[in-house]
């Protein structure tokens, strides 16, 4: 049997805003079905890395390929980005679930879910609506199809955000701090939805501050600081206390061992 290649390959990815270097040569590999957690202090470049995978932020150097489609390559002098059309095609397959949901405010929940499938994937409206209803049911909101985002709670909005990503028939879903904007009592509901996706084998890259969640659900955890991944490993390895002093200090700070 052939071993599946990585669905995401990132090598030496750099990103600067003006003179400020936010990513300093990040390497990352994600295999099909893998749940990858990215943790680390605020401002370490986690979100920028995640957004770069979707090319929402344009890297300034380095190599990035999703599902064998190269999106950018080369170093400073010879850095190149794939044509816009190719980038759009890849984007459709690696949707982002945003921290602030970013649901289309002027559209009902069902309409939110069919925009991408109809306009980007070229599905028929009927087919898109059928998929949308199914995905909505999967996140427990079957009865909210006609509601508008403003009529939903934060937790419900984020479920719609996840359903909208699922409606794209994604190869991989990127989560950008999916629970950071939620009230504490709503967090566990969203984590449950993500856990179910993991159980069904969905490939996911999740930027999160929920350490116990990262530990329980992550296949691999990457620890970022100051634009670099400074430690990687399975939850057991990373949380064992045998790693670098810096990682241990951070983990003890936010998730002291009992």
């Amino acid at each position, binding site marked *: 049997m052939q071993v599946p290649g990585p669905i995401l390959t990132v090598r030496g990815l750099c990103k600067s805003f003006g003179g400020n270097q936010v990513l300093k040569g990040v390497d990352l590999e994600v295999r099909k079905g893998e749940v990858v957690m990215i943790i680390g202090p605020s401002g370490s470049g986690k979100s920028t890395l995640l957004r770069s995978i979707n090319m929402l932020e344009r890297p300034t150097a380095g190599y990035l390929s999703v599902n064998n489609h190269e999106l950018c390559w080369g170093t400073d002098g010879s850095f190149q980005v794939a044509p816009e059309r190719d980038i759009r095609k890849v984007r*459709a397959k690696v*949707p982002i679930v945003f921290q602030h949901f970013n*649901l*289309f405010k002027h559209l009902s929940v069902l309409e939110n879910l069919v925009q991408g499938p109809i306009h980007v994937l070229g599905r028929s409206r009927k087919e898109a609506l059928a998929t949308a209803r199914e995905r909505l049911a999967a996140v427990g909101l079957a009865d909210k199809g006609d509601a*508008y985002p403003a*009529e939903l709670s934060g937790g419900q909005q984020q479920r719609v955000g996840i359903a909208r990503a699922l409606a794209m028939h994604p190869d991989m879903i990127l989560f950008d701090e999916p629970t950071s904007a939620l009230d504490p009592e709503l967090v566990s509901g969203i984590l449950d939805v993500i856990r179910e996706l993991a159980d069904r084998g969905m490939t996911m890259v999740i930027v999160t501050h929920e350490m116990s969640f990262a530990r329980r659900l992550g296949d691999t955890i990457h620890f970022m600081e100051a634009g670099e991944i400074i430690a990687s490993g399975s939850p057991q390895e990373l949380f064992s206390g045998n790693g670098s002093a810096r990682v241990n200090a951070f983990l003890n700070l936010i998730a002291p061992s009992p």
Partner: protein
Amino acid sequence: MYDYLFVWAPRHLPSLLQGAGVTLQLAIISMCCALVVGLLVALGHLHAPKWVRWLLKAYVEIWRDIPLIVQLLVIYFTLPQIGISLPGFWAGIIGLSLNLGAYISEVFRSAIASVDKGQREAAVSIGMSTVQSYCYIILPQALLVAVPTIGGYFISLLKDCALVSFIAVNELLRNGQIIISSTFQSMEVYMMVAFIYFVMSFTASIIVRQVERLLTPAYLVRAHKRT
């Protein structure tokens, strides 16, 4: 009074109503052109190269700083000098469209800017092109913000059309003045002209309100009913 209502008015009303028809045509055609100009200028401001943006800025500034009547006269009397001879009606359309377009571009620009940038990101992140993200996500939301202001501009445009009488277009006001020149009944005619303008503007403002209501998304209507 009897004479005014049953003899005088029927004799002159057709000419005034015909003029009102021209006024309406001027207003509607100019409005459509101004919307296109305004939208293109607003999008240019946001996406075009720097030198184009600079030109657009100059256009908006110049057109807003010169009285409309002067613009109309300049267009009507200078275009023939460079070989373009336009009937007053179309010179009027050009003047009104460019003038209103300058104002409307600013309305569109701030309406587009008022749409949260997360909306664009969400659209683009699922693979929409820039054009698609504008058509399906950004502009529908921006339009909602812009409609009340644009409706207000339409009503003032309807009244500004009276200025086109200065460049020999037989619209409502000028037809009134023509009647006065033969009957010398200024007060009666101007009253009638004023009344027709009022009816047109009032009707227009009712229509604008209906359009606003039609465009209001269902959830806002529901929220309104609940309170």
